[in-house]
């Protein structure tokens, strides 16, 4: 199907790659269908986009939390994930949303409410974790120093 998204213009969506969020994302129960848009250059290491199918003007920048912090290991009650089907290391995809404020130095990720996707079953959900992770975890400095390291190593 074709979709005109706000950020990427007209894009072709592979129907088999649509992920269903039965209850929407938190605060937006009507946003139920999304697809993940990858940046090919970064091979999944960089920003991905959770593009909403129901409302094409909505897309959330997301990132693998392990790209930000290797220690990210929130406790998640398995029962809350039951609607996603059986999860294992091959079908589990965890993402956190990125918030881009006007002041880029305040760039942050939301570690309190990860997005969990079963990529085989194409089912996803967003949960609030009990652990004391911040809603706004600032990442500008982490990314800057990593970038500097990469460029220094070239």
């Amino acid at each position, binding site marked *: 199907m074709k979709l005109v998204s706000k950020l990427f213009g007209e894009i072709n969506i592979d129907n088999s790659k649509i992920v269903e969020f039965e209850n929407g994302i938190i605060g937006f129960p009507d946003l139920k269908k999304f697809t993940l848009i990858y940046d090919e250059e970064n091979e999944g290491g960089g920003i991905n986009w959770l593009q909403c199918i129901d409302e094409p003007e909505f897309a959330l920048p997301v990132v693998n939390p392990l790209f930000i912090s290797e220690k990210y290991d929130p406790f998640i009650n398995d029962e809350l994930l039951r609607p996603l089907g059986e999860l294992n290391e091959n079908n589990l995809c965890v993402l956190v*949303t990125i918030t*881009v404020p006007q002041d880029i130095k305040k760039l942050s990720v*939301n570690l309190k409410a990860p997005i969990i996707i079963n990529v085989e079953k194409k089912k996803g959900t967003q949960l609030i974790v009990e652990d004391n992770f911040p809603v706004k975890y600032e990442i500008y400095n982490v990314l800057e120093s990593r970038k500097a390291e990469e460029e220094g190593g070239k």
Partner: protein
Amino acid sequence: MLALSRKKGEALILNNDIEITVLEIKGDQVKLGIQAPKEVPVYRKEIYLQIQKENQDSMNIDGLDALKKLF
């Protein structure tokens, strides 16, 4: 909004499978017990609203070019 009065120890049933009981009343604080199927998430509203706001902000991207430079 439906308003119902309950005393300590009394409860409400929602949707056949969710029970909310008033456990304790102390001054302006009420302790509630919630019995719901385990796959039903229960959140404090202020945290829920905080995440809703964060999702909203995440969808409003101001500095896309600046963001791309960082990754």
